[in-house]
């Protein structure tokens, strides 16, 4: 099966995954209203039901869901937050705090408006047109009194694009699990290597997919790894097939 035909039954959408993507890109489904966790759960259910993992599909899914998550978070952030993903935890915490306070402030203000409206309940205003004798007479302006430049200016204003959200770094998966498997097996021929070596200079996506490939090798019984301390180096070595598997915590 391909990822495209993954059937989804979500709160705001029901149908195949590729249709959902199309609708999101055509803005007919609002990404902000879509619970991405629901999509991930649907995919996990699907994996469960099939009992096997198609690596190509898995890679595609990870990339797409990551892209949707990033797009969604960008939609919710201000336009000049391009660098947000790379900011320090302190900055991120400040930023998040500011946003939480904002949201909380206006939720409270909304409750206050509700109270005001309740206080005014039953107050009606008169909405009766003026007697004919008093109605305002509107006079057409003189011929040629309007400047055509007003029209050109309006079009110029309407042509202006909002600041663009760059998606260049997303989209087509540049790295696949299969490719990373080959890479790891190549390194394994040396007997052992460290994970840091395997992902040196790689971007986040490649690191994630490489980890995924490593897990797959572990599942197939081809590798073992050890890590002396938390956040320390992960040493990967080929598993000696004859011996019983040694379980190592990651």
């Amino acid at each position, binding site marked *: 099966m391909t990822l495209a035909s993954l059937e989804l039954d979500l709160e705001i959408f029901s149908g195949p995954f590729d249709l959902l993507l199309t609708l*999101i*890109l055509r*803005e007919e489904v*609002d*990404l902000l209203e879509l619970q991405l966790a629901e999509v991930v759960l649907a995919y996990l259910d699907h994996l469960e039901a099939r009992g096997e993992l198609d690596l190509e599909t898995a890679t595609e899914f990870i990339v797409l869901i990551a892209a949707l998550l990033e*797009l969604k978070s960008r*939609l919710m952030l201000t336009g000049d937050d391009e660098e947000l993903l790379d900011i320090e935890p302190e900055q991120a915490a400040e930023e998040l705090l500011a946003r939480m306070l904002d949201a909380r402030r206006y939720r409270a203000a909304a409750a206050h408006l509700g109270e005001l409206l309740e206080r005014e309940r039953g107050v*009606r205003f*008169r*909405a*009766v*047109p*003026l*007697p004919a*004798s*008093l*109605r*305002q*007479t*509107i*006079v*057409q*302006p003189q*011929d*040629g*009194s*309007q*400047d*055509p*430049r*007003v*029209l*050109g*200016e*309006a*079009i*110029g*204003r*309407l*042509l*202006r*694009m*909002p600041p*663009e*959200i*760059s*998606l*260049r770094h997303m989209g087509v998966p540049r790295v696949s699990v299969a490719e990373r498997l080959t890479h790891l097996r190549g390194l394994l021929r040396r007997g052992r290597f460290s994970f840091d070596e395997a992902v040196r200079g790689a971007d986040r996506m490649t690191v994630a997919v490489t980890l995924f490939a490593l897990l797959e090798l572990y599942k197939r019984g081809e590798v073992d790894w050890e890590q002396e301390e938390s956040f320390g180096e992960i040493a990967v070595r080929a598993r000696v097939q004859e011996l019983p598997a040694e379980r190592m915590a990651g």
Partner: protein
Amino acid sequence: MSEKTDADGRVSETMDADDQAGETAELTRTIEALLFLAPDPLSEKELAEATQAEDAEVRAAIERLAEEYAPGRRGIALRELAGGWTLASDPHAEDAARRLFSRQRVATLTPAQAETLAIVAYLQPISRPEITRIRGVSADSATATLLERGLIEESGHSQFGAVLYRTGVQFLKLFGLRSLDDLPDVARWDPTPEEQAELRDRLLRAGEARAGGGPHGS
């Protein structure tokens, strides 16, 4: 109404009279509010139904209201008209009302109207849904006003059945143009003149990007 057993009975009588007066006052206020709000005269029957009072009570309340609104006392008059009762402004305020409301006003274009008119002028014929997509917000009331003033007019239907608009006879006159060819070149105000796509496509794209903040052309 409360019945109080009393030695001579006078107290309870007084109470009743007070209660009655209080109720009439209450009903009078309610009827005053209804007459204030209603655009047309209200019959005594309508008032009785709305207030769930007896016809006689309604009549008593209206009599009381008529005293409060006795001619010359207030700026609002109570009138019996078309089988019902209505409130109207007193004619003595006519001059002030005319100064306030009837000033002749030269119709100028609001920003929303100017924008809608510009879209029709440059892209005609164009449907209202397209205008809305370009503006990012509804153009219904602007379109209605422009139609009414003869600045735009209907021009057939699109293949999807939407009414199309083009500029109308008043348009060229108002802007002092001999023909549509005299419209100024948009390039002067174009923020990205290097773009090659058609004006319509570019406007639609920009409008959609502005409206939703959704994903757009990377």
